[in-house]
């Protein structure tokens, strides 16, 4: 292994020199491949849907698909409003809500120009409002009444909204007396009301069109004998499985602003505060968060640029690392485009990783290059030396990071596999850039220019351009000068220029030697605390609590949970495996009993539930004209006749509750919002209650299946899946990285010794979260390998450099001083740059990003302390020889 490493060392040292004669070819190849990948990037596409997170054929997804196939889409938009006069039944409230209902329901029906002028909508927004299928509000909802022998379904609120209080009170009393309206359309204290908007999103079928090119008068494949229809059963006939258009969540992004433009008219806002909830509102919020995160990323780039400039005082040190990032990201995106692979929003994380790795690689090379230049070496020599020192560690960190990211592929979740592989590819691209393109670019433009003899002013066009550039640079410098002056006065220049760094690094070996035992005890203590903390960490994803408290949607969810019917929804799918089973009084009774049990046992979570059983009970009471009959009749013929009315309802509405052959139905349960950890326990308990409620029917309906489903359950399952698979992939990554370290360091002792400093930053975030009782959400979990990858990179640089120096000098003392002085500078630079960059994310509204920013930058900073203090202390105590013989193990730095 040692020989391989030395050979690699020699190889990397020769790369700049070998490339120099061919620099033009290298540049042309780089340019051509960039153009090629640029075209590929044009073909790149993103998939935002929840479904894309699951493998095709995943049982959870299939259950939801089956549910949607059977009962339709389970998401919609719910706009809760709070009446500023405290009464949603006041004349003013009702009049305005009636106007709003009409506006939303009819926006697409009237001349688009009218809606555009009245509400400031664009034509595209008017068109998307046409996808609203139904708007339900207090002012257009009907109630069922049974007076004597007469059944009627009048509007709850008459079209001519009464103005006298007595009539309004009557409406209020009537509304309160309904079994289905309170909590759904208004809160019990009448302060809050709701508009329920149903769209056709996710319910548009994909059906092949016949006769597309032929004449309409030509017969199509279905033509047959329709004179005498034969109803004989033939189970071997093939039923076409109708698929539904996958919903692109970007539709919501056009839809939400269109809806909010209408309700945000001054006259509505004077009377109401609006709180939209549901998938559309959540998607819009997620998009806003992404834009916010994008701005923070720009901030991160600005901070990184600023630090690169102050640390290296060279434009090339600012531009070249960013070129590395840009090209690596472009190559990944272009590669995806050419390979026709659809990516998810996780590509943003790939970008973040490439930023970190690309910068780290370039900073290591340039820092080392400058170190040798300052030692007095010429450009070519310094470059060759720099690559000799950094080439192998960069290769090692590339391999370990790639291995860590590729281990995500074993999660089995398609998007994670994509994310892992794309990140691995991005890291590899950054490696190629650093090793094969950067030396060529550094030849043309490097941080410490060689002082050239004053040339004669060139003439012609080039001379003009040169003079123009010089003039512009002088002007820029003039503008920057006052800023530099202020910065100097404030001491910022001293701080950022790292003038203090080398003197500080010089003092480290002696300092560590004096306190080596204390340092080891402190770090081992931190490690033990982190391990304990990590064992206590609670994995919990809360759909709402990932946003900070000042984000309006949190207020909306709190209101809906506290005053209305709850913001979560769970569906219990009931498949009896036999036609007409849903008309069996025993089946309906089991459903009804289960609903009672659920409400009794889980009153803290469940606000209310609804099912076919409720409908039968309601119709029974109405038809008998007596509330005492609010029950499931014992006779199946009577049930069947009560359902006769419902059967004749709008087929779509009936299908939303019970299948055509009455073998399948569902119970819809409204829940309060809570985290996935709480719900995981709750779902387990509920499944037991479901099983026991339906146990009596098992003999009669042997093929019966009763299970939970719905988007909510799917998201919770995703959170659960993610936790498990992510832990698995993290474990694999840890094993792979450790094995690689042992192999490259050439000894078990050295391997173990280098893994421990790596494990501290890796476990720090989890440990702190466990100790501080901060739940670990799925978003943070996704990014964990990324943070770990970045944090361990510097440690690997440090350790491998030490080992190479040990091989070269056979002296532990020289090797350690060498490592601290040379790599210490580079790891401090990368730590400063990346830790400050990541810290920008802690200003996000999205608490997931805040955690990434805070814990990520902390982990990167702790990794630096591990490199500079903990690892040298371990070496001083255990004196590992890394497989070398005849090593001078004198480590006394305090000798004069």
């Amino acid at each position: 292994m040692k020989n391989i490493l030395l050979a690699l060392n020699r190889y990397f040292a020769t790369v700049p020199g070998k490339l120099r004669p061919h620099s033009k070819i290298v540049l042309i190849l780089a340019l051509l491949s960039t153009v090629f990948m640029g075209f590929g990037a044009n073909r790149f596409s993103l998939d935002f849907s929840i479904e894309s997170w699951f493998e095709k054929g995943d049982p959870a997804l299939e259950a939801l698909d089956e549910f949607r196939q059977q009962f339709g889409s389970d998401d919609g938009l719910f706009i809760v409003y709070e009446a500023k006069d405290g009464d949603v039944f006041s004349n003013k409230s009702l009049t305005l809500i009636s106007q709003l209902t009409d506006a939303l329901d009819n926006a697409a029906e009237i001349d688009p120009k009218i809606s555009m002028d009245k509400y400031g909508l664009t034509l595209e927004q008017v068109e998307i409002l046409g996808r609203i299928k139904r708007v339900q509000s207090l002012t257009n909802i009907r109630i069922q009444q049974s007076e004597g022998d007469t059944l009627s379904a009048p509007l709850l609120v008459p079209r001519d909204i009464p103005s006298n209080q007595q009539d309004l009170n009557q409406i209020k009393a009537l509304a309160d007396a309904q079994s289905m309206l309170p909590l759904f359309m208004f809160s019990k204290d009448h302060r809050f009301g709701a508009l329920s908007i149903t769209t056709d999103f996710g319910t548009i079928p994909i059906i092949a069109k016949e006769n597309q090119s032929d004449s309409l008068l030509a017969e199509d494949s279905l033509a047959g004998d329709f004179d005498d229809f034969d109803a004989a059963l033939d189970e071997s006939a093939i039923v076409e499985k109708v698929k539904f258009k996958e919903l692109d969540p970007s539709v919501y992004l056009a839809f939400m602003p269109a809806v909010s433009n209408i309700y945000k008219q001054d006259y509505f806002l004077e009377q109401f505060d609006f709180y939209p909830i549901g998938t559309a509102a959540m998607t819009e919020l997620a998009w806003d968060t992404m834009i916010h995160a994008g701005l923070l990323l720009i901030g991160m780039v600005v901070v990184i640029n600023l630090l690169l400039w102050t640390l290296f005082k060279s434009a090339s040190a600012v531009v070249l690392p960013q070129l590395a990032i840009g090209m690596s990201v472009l190559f990944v995106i272009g590669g995806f485009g050419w390979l026709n692979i659809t990516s998810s929003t996780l590509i943003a994380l790939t970008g973040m990783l490439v930023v970190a790795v690309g910068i780290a690689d370039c900073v290591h090379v340039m820092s080392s290059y400058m170190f040798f230049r300052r030692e007095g070496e010429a450009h070519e020599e310094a470059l060759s030396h720099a690559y000799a020192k950094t080439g192998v560690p960069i290769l090692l960190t590339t391999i370990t990071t790639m291995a860590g990211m590729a281990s995500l592929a074993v999660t089995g979740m398609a998007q994670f596999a994509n994310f892992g592989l794309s990140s691995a590819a991005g890291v590899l691209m950054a490696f190629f850039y650093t090793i094969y393109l950067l030396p060529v670019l550094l030849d043309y433009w490097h941080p410490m220019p060689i002082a050239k003899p004053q040339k004669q002013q060139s003439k012609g066009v080039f001379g003009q351009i040169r003079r123009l550039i010089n003039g512009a640079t002088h002007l820029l410098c003039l503008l920057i000068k006052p800023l530099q002056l202020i910065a100097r006065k404030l001491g910022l220049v001293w701080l950022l220029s790292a003038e203090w760094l080398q003197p500080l690094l010089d003092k480290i070996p002696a300092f560590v030697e004096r306190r080596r035992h204390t340092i080891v005890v402190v770090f081992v203590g931190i490690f033990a605390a982190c391990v304990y903390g990590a064992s206590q960490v609670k994995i919990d994803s809360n759909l709402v609590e990932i946003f900070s408290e000042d984000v309006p949607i949190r207020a909306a969810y709190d209101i809906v949970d506290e005053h209305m019917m709850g913001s979560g929804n769970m569906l219990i799918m009931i498949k009896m495996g036999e036609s007409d089973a849903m008309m069996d009084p025993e089946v309906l009774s089991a459903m009804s009993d289960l609903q009672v049990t659920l409400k009794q046992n889980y009153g803290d979570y469940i606000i209310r539930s609804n099912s076919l059983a409720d409908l039968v009970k309601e119709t029974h009471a109405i038809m008998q004209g007596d509330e005492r009959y609010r029950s499931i009749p014992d006779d199946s013929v009577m049930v069947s006749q009560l359902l006769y009315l419902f059967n004749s309802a709008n087929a779509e509405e009936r299908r939303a509750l019970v299948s055509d052959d009455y073998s399948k139905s569902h119970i819809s349960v409204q829940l309060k919002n809570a985290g996935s950890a709480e719900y995981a326990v709750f779902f387990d308990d509920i499944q037991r209650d479901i099983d026991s409620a339906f146990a009596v029917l098992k003999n009669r309906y042997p093929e019966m299946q009763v299970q939970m489903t719905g988007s909510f359950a799917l998201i919770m399952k995703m959170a659960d899946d993610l936790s498990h698979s992510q832990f698995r992939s993290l474990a694999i990554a840890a094993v792979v990285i450790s094995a690689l370290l042992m192999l490259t360091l050439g000894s078990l002792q050295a391997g173990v010794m280098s893994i421990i400093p790596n494990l501290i930053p890796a476990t720090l975030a989890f440990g702190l979260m466990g100790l501080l009782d901060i739940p670990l959400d799925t978003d943070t979990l996704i990014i964990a390998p990324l943070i770990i990858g970045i944090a361990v990179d510097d440690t690997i640089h440090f350790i491998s450099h030490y080992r190479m120096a040990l091989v070269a000098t056979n002296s532990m003392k020289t090797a350690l001083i060498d490592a601290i002085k040379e790599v210490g500078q580079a790891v401090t630079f990368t730590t400063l740059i990346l830790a400050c960059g990541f810290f920008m994310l802690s200003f996000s509204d999205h608490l997931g990003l805040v955690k990434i920013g805070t814990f990520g930058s902390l982990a990167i900073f702790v990794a630096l302390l591990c490199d500079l203090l903990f690892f040298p202390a371990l070496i001083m105590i255990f004196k590992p020889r890394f497989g070398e013989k005849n090593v001078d193990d004198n480590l006394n730095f305090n000798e004069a």
Partner: protein
Amino acid sequence: MTTLYPKSTSYFLCTILLATFLSVISTDIVAQTELSAREIVERVDESQRKTTNSAFTRMKLTTCKFGIKNGKIKCVEKARIKLVESAQINTGVDNKDTKSIAILLEPASERGIGMLTYTYEDSERDNETWLYLSALGKVKRISVRNSDDEDTESASLFGTEITTEDQETGKLDDYTYELLEQGEYRGRQVAVIESRPKAHRINKSSYGKTRRWIDLERFIVLKAQMFDKHDNPIKRIEVGKVQKINNIWMGRSLTFMNSVSQRLTNMKLEAISFDMDIDESFLTQRALTDQAFREQFLNNLRQQAQ
């Protein structure tokens, strides 16, 4: 977020339209190929509106999930069969009011369910419907104001794939019409006409457009294809067994195929007679509740129909 709340009584109304379902009948036998799309549709609609006085029908509604085998449509599950008898007379000034009754004979669990409906030409007067559920032995009057019609959504006929919108007559001004093609189809001279709901109508319609293959000689629809608002062909109606009864052309076997649910309903007119002698006293609540009284009248009508 789903809700179960039944939003209106629209489904009470659907069976009332049963008696007017003969929507594809026509008495006109003049071939007019020079007519515009709108004129052709007007001719069909005009014929449909000539709902004949004193009609008695017995129809069999067969519904099943369908599949295709050897290019033929087959039921892949046991079909649900409903047998309905209905009678209707015109009354009032100028015979513009109607009284009708519909009784379910099958399936056994729904036997005896009946609907009695009086409709009035006078828009000030609300139509009246009485529903009888035999298992409960109770008659309920269903009150639906005429003014509620405008927000009544399309309902299903007895839980089949036939909707009230499929049977709608009139309201021609709510649509635009275009003649797409004209020529021979299934051995008949046919015009293919596409209708699209106008802006004010589109929200209430389940369809974005409908194509009808209209026999230009008999003014009867031979086939119809309904599309959703995204241009997907979601439903298809095939008319079979076209016969001339009492000088009226009609299809006696109509198949409604829903391409989304993959379910079909075949409506077969087992018996149909016009100009029957129907006593107005039969079309009262007694016919719903008194089985012997009802059977006596129905037997009489069955014999006349034969």
